[in-house]
């Protein structure tokens, strides 16, 4: 009923509008046989000037209200640098924005035909064209140079720390599989064939590879403050994108083509909460949790490439901790091998290389059979 009534109201509004417009046109026509736009130009000159002021006021208001709500400062080494470049670029384009918009709307107002001044016949000025070609070129060259410096330092493989953490994230509809290499720091081999891949082993892990025996899957992405991490990325079914908004990290996960991203977290989750606790907006109470916002702050992993109808649901918490806390956490994890290893080998948590020697292929699930 409400929908129907609002529909009727809108239709009536339209009818009224058309009638007013028509009446306006007829009255103008009655005034004389020539249709004169001078008056409209005068009014529109003022309105356009008014719009300019409204636009700047609105922008200022938006900055004041929305900047505090934005995703907080970067929590990674490269993220701090790209944020800086973002701000520098913003400042430059902000200046250009103000100058050009003011010129555009002011000229519209100042030179509208109600002033009755004859237009100035002026076709071109090559000097001016050169000036406004060269200045943007110089500014852009600077921005490109800064951007490329960051870009190449982010993707510079030679500068990688050999002590980095390596974590594998594999995406599928609609979940993340986070695999850690365990204490040996090495991942078990993955084999892409129908013998290895099965509903219980979607990644196709080769259990004969002893490196796999201490690999474990985590439900949260644990990272270490100050320790670089290499994310090894992939997808099983369709495109996904590994997105860590707080760390300014994004890289697509492509079925059949491995990708990676190397970065260094700079703040633990606790430190970020501490940092945010001083920000006014983060001190406000979140009505959903009934707590101050900074208290429930967490880093998150999201999917940033449309991957199907539940694309928006691929959330995982990211926890950044100190090395000691990380080691403690690793100790509590259960190796995946525990689920597939022969029962006699349990507890699988502490799978020793020695234990794997006794693995009898016949006791494994058939899907795990390896034939080289």
């Amino acid at each position: 009923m409400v929908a129907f009534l609002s529909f009727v109201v809108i239709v009536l509004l339209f009818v009224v509008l058309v009638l007013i417009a028509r009446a306006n046109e007829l009255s103008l026509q009655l005034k004389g046989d020539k249709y004169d736009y001078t008056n409209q130009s005068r009014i529109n000159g003022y309105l356009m000037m008014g719009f300019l002021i409204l636009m700047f006021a609105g922008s200022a208001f938006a900055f004041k209200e929305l900047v505090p709500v934005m995703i907080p400062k970067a929590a990674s080494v490269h993220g701090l640098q790209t944020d800086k470049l973002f701000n520098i670029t913003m400042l430059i384009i902000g200046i250009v924005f103000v100058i050009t918009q003011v010129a555009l709307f002011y000229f519209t107002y100042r030179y509208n035909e109600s002033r009755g001044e004859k237009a100035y016949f002026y076709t071109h000025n090559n000097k001016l064209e050169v000036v406004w070609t060269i200045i943007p070129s110089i500014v852009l060259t600077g921005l490109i140079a800064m951007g490329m410096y960051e870009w190449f330092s982010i993707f510079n493989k030679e500068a990688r720390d050999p002590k980095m953490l390596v974590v594998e994230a594999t995406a599928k509809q609609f979940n993340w599989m986070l695999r850690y290499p365990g204490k040996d720091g090495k991942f078990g081999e993955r084999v892409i064939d129908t013998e290895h891949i099965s509903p219980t082993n979607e990644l196709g892990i080769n259990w004969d590879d002893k490196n796999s025996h201490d690999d474990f899957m985590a439900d949260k992405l644990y990272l270490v403050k100050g320790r670089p991490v290499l994310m090894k990325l992939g997808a099983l079914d369709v495109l996904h994108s590994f997105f860590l908004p707080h760390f300014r990290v994004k890289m697509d996960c492509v079925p059949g083509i491995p990708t990676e991203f190397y970065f260094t977290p700079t703040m633990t989750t606790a430190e970020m909460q501490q940092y945010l606790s001083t920000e006014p907006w983060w001190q406000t109470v979140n009505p959903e949790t009934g707590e101050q916002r900074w208290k429930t702050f967490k880093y998150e992993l999201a999917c940033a490439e449309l991957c199907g109808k539940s694309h928006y649901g691929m959330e995982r918490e990211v926890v950044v901790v100190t090395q000691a806390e990380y080691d403690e956490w690793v100790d509590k994890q259960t190796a995946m091998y525990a689920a597939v290893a022969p029962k006699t080998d349990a507890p699988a948590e502490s799978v020793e290389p020695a234990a794997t020697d006794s693995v009898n292929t016949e006791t494994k699930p058939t899907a795990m059979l390896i034939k080289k």
Partner: protein
Amino acid sequence: MQTAHSVDHAHADVHHIHGHDEHHHEETFLTKYIFSQDHKMISKQFLITGIFWGIVGGLLSVLFRLQLGWPNETFPFLETFLGKWAEGGKISNEFYYALVTMHGTILVFFVLTGGLSGTFANLLIPYQIGARDMASPFMNMLSYWFFLAASTVMLFSFFIQTGPASGGWTAYPPLNGLRDTGINLGSGMGFDMWALGMTLFIISSLLGGLNYIATVLNMRTKGMSMFRLPLTIWALMFTAIIGVLSFPALLAGVTLLEFDRLLDTSFYLNNIVVNGQLLGYKGGSPILFQHLFWFLGHPEVYIIILPAMGIVSEVLSVHARKPIFGYKAMVFSILAILVLSFIVWAHHMFVTGLNPNLGAIFTLFTLLIAIPSAIKVFNWIGTLWRGNIRLVSAALFAIGFVSMFITGGLTGIILGNSSLDIHLHDTYFVVAHFHIVMGVSAFFGMFAGVYHWFPRLFGRFMNETLGQIHFYVTLVGAYCIFFPMHFMTGLPRRYYTFANFDTFNNFNHLAAFISVFAIVVFLAQLVFVVNFFYSIFKGRKVEGEVANPWGANTLEWTAPVERLHGNWPADIPTVYRWPYDYSTEFGETNPQNLPLRSGEEQH
């Protein structure tokens, strides 16, 4: 006002008008309105089809804005109209993705490519170069009919059981390369219809584009050298060239995608695992499709914006009563955009795992595009400076275009920088950027064109009051929709709801604010639609047999108000000067067919 500076010269070189028996032949309703080969009628067909699609595309955005603005509310009337797609009055996630996919496809291709280029290339190319019609009127007709066929297929895909395409307007595989097997993977028959619709659309675009290029190059009237062409024609011709060179890449890309879907080939598929089962696809690359798609997809945004730029250049100059500032700089900057538009496509792929060296090259070319774009903006502003601007709806929309183009273009400098794009890619910052710079801007250019050339199309004016209401509501509303999205930096686009994430869930009030303005702006467009159709029949009539209501110099206004097949009843006009001799010492309007007076200089 309009008669004062127009009629004197309008007849200047059209040797006297005598009836139109020469081109008179029997026309039936069918040949005049349906299977017309007359460029003016085809232009109207494109325009009205484009308006239809504009309403549909806008309506889709209103529907998904309801979901985004009020994710916890239900709207029972939605179930009435949409049935199973909105059970309980809430749009389903599946249908949400169909809405965003079709919104993108419809507005990019069917409104801002078909509707914009189709309308103005058809209307203006023959008129402004002084030709009686297109090089091949028959191909021109086919171009519209393929467009209509494409439209029909797209429209019908809404009514099949599994719904329209829902894997994004970019149609990335494997999501769109695999058929839906009932396990959340791949896409259904709606996508096959999408592919068929796009194929027909590309055929239409190629038929039209080749015709536009041939016409501009070969059928200019006597005296119409290339540097006497109005900027509209330069822009429309370069647009057609971009289309002809880039659309085939998409056709190839989509064809191979259909092979993957229907014939189980592996062009784009490799090692796909679904529910623990390795499918048989081997050796393809999903990234290959992205290269093919964006090889069209990026030039496509220039296909959209160049005609708008051409229209705005012309409209600003006419209404400012002043020559376009830096004509040659304008031509060469469009040429630079044309060339650069082909070598920037991979900036859509910075985070696909692309070789970083390639990323660097594409950053360089992408940011270079800012230079010709900046030149154009400065020249438009220079045109307004010391003008005598008549602020009617057409001029207002042209000025609005420049404002939008500045705002949207500037953020391109941020997104084009690959290291910044890592964070911003596929977030609302991108949504804000491209909607302002190519969506809203192109619409403003299109509206400027419609208000300006409506008297040429229909012999009547559109209502100014309604036009100005339309302008201000759209200008304010569009800024209110898209400007705040810049602050939603880092919020992924194409999310049905942000409720699953603490990080993204802080902008719910803003989302509702945006949705309110989306609805307001949509209603304002209906004001335009009402004005358009009302004015066709009841608008104020253009006075006189030949009228030049805005006092323009270009040739389309030298043809009779009554739209004749062949445009000019007698000889076609001869051109003696460039199109921008406004407010010279000899007079305010100096049509192109007016011979130079003694002491007058060529420009």
